[in-house]
């Protein structure tokens, strides 16, 4: 999209830490530190170990999805299908759990990965807009979910004593396994993005596609890979959620794509592509979840304010980013 931004310039130095880039990243981090500090002082329950564990677990599912979205957005694309794919992944995992741990884990990864692959192929090979392709697969994945669940009437339960439930509910020092899964994946994602040639290709694809083509960057393959990754990760997040909830809830994930996009943007990744960090996304997830947590702590405050505050917050961040970039 044509804005006054000049992505070509910023893309030229993907690895180099320009001053504005540092400012942006630290901006989100500073905000997170401030919000956490204030919450800690004002709300005695905020700092309790129980609440922090809860907070980290809530953030873990979103972080896994947002990680895939970060890659997609850095290539200059967008993936609207993740909310539906997330729900589908959960249902597939719950359905598969009757056939054992491996099926419960692999089925959602494979099917959701395939949906991502089709997204990627359509976007890379036919020059259709990512927005509209993934909008279609948002509908498709929801439809597929309804087919499997008898139009949403059936909710598959996961046997409480199965190993798969352990994946969602097991803990180390009280911290749930999904937190570690998300942490390992984000670490891995950061390394891939900054230390591998694939990561360089992701930046190049989003920075200046034409120049990337001329430089011999495999644009099509990079795009197919990022959308496949995004689909797979959304499916994994769904599977983890199902394991945690011990069932494949059919109605979750509506609008989740927008949450994921919001945290990626708050984390300083540009929607124009060519620039972004995994750390920023993790900080973005932290910010949104801490704010939601705090609003829940204020018992008297209407829960409807939660989305108002999230909206205002998103706005402040993007306006600040814009001003910092000038």
């Amino acid at each position: 999209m044509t804005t006054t931004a000049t992505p070509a310039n910023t893309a030229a130095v993907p690895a180099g830490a320009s001053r504005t880039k540092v400012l942006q990243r630290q901006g989100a981090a500073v905000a997170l530190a401030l919000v956490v500090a204030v919450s800690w002082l004002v709300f005695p329950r905020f700092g309790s170990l129980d609440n922090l564990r809860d907070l980290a677990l809530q953030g873990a599912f979103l972080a896994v999805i947002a990680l895939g979205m970060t890659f997609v957005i850095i290539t200059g694309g967008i993936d609207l299908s993740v909310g539906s794919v997330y729900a589908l992944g959960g249902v597939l995992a719950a359905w598969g759990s009757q056939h054992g741990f491996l099926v419960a884990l692999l089925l959602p990864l494979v099917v959701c990965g395939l949906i991502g692959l089709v997204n990627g192929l359509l976007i890379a090979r036919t020059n259709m807009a990512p927005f509209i392709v993934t909008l279609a697969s948002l509908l498709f994945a929801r439809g597929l979910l309804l087919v499997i669940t008898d139009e949403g009437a059936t909710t598959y339960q996961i046997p409480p004593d199965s190993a798969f439930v352990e994946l969602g509910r097991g803990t180390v020092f009280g911290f749930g396994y999904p937190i570690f899964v998300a942490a390992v994946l984000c670490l891995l994602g950061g390394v891939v993005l900054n230390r591998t040639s694939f990561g360089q290709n992701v930046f190049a694809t989003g920075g200046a596609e034409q120049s990337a083509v001329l430089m011999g960057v495999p644009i099509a393959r990079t795009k197919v890979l990022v959308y496949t990754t995004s689909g797979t990760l959304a499916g994994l997040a769904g599977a983890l959620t199902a394991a945690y909830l011990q069932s494949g809830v059919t109605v979750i994930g509506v609008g989740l794509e927008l949450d994921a996009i919001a945290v990626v943007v708050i984390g300083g990744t540009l929607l124009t592509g060519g620039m972004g960090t995994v750390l920023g996304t993790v900080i973005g997830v932290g910010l949104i979840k801490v704010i939601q947590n705090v609003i829940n702590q204020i018992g008297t405050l209407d829960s409807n304010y939660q989305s108002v505050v999230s909206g205002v917050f998103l706005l402040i961040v993007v306006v600040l980013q814009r001003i910092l970039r000038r």
Partner: protein
Amino acid sequence: MTLKATRTAARTRWLQDNGVYVAVGVLLLFNALFTANFLTLGNVTTQLVQAAPVLIVALGMALVIGTEGVDLSVGAVMALAAAIIPLYLGAGPLVAITMALVAGVLAGVFNGFLVARVGIQPIVATLALLVGGRGLALVIADGQLVQLHDPAFLALGTGDVLGVPISVLVAGVLAVAVAALTNRTTFGRQLVAIGGNRKAATLAGLPVTRVLIGVYAICGVLAAVAGVLATSRLSASDPADMGLLMELSAITAVVVGGTPLTGGRVRVLGTVFGVVLMQLVRATLIKHDLPDSIAQMIQAAIIIAAVYVARERR
């Protein structure tokens, strides 16, 4: 280019421009032949009434997309309009409707300001209002669904003029107005020019900021109109559900109607037919007892097919 290649190109070009009309024609023919009681006055009226709010929103969306933007906040603006109606209904329906429309304009100006002046990407700028707008609507309404009883206001949703439901009439008039605005006014030419190449439009001295804010304001007020009509038809203010996922329906209709997401072109008649096509598909599937699951997957396929046909060649 060989003759054969020229012919193929011409055929593709024709399909790009007219595919949506052909699709609507084929579906109408199919239903006329195979669906009982489809082309009855009662059913056609029902279908049109259902499609009217989507069309009104899609008209505004077409203008925004023509500027190479997108407005994700339309559903939230409908919810805001719905929440405002009961607050002022005591002072009369005209006051209530005016206040709802003013809120729509303000929401649109807000979006437009963020996009045009601050320079934030349309997706993010309008995402903020999508997230916050519905929350604000729920705060205003205290999270409650409010039954409405004002007969004059409810007449908007139930009344008709010479057999044509008022909401359909409003949608029709607005479609003509938006078509005239796009094709016959300086504003229309400017918005298409901005969508085609914003930098060039700026260099050519077009009032880019003013036009963009105007376009988003129009989109906002149209979403509010749709919210008012839908609220009246529901005879209740329901900010929790009003306009939910409307942004996706509207964008789909606009794109299926042949307006490219890359901007620089607005097809108003195509948008009307895009809305009609999506409504026809849904109605056809329901009448033939196909479950919702299949309906959603077929809609996905139609979107892909429409965009595939209309895509820009490399």
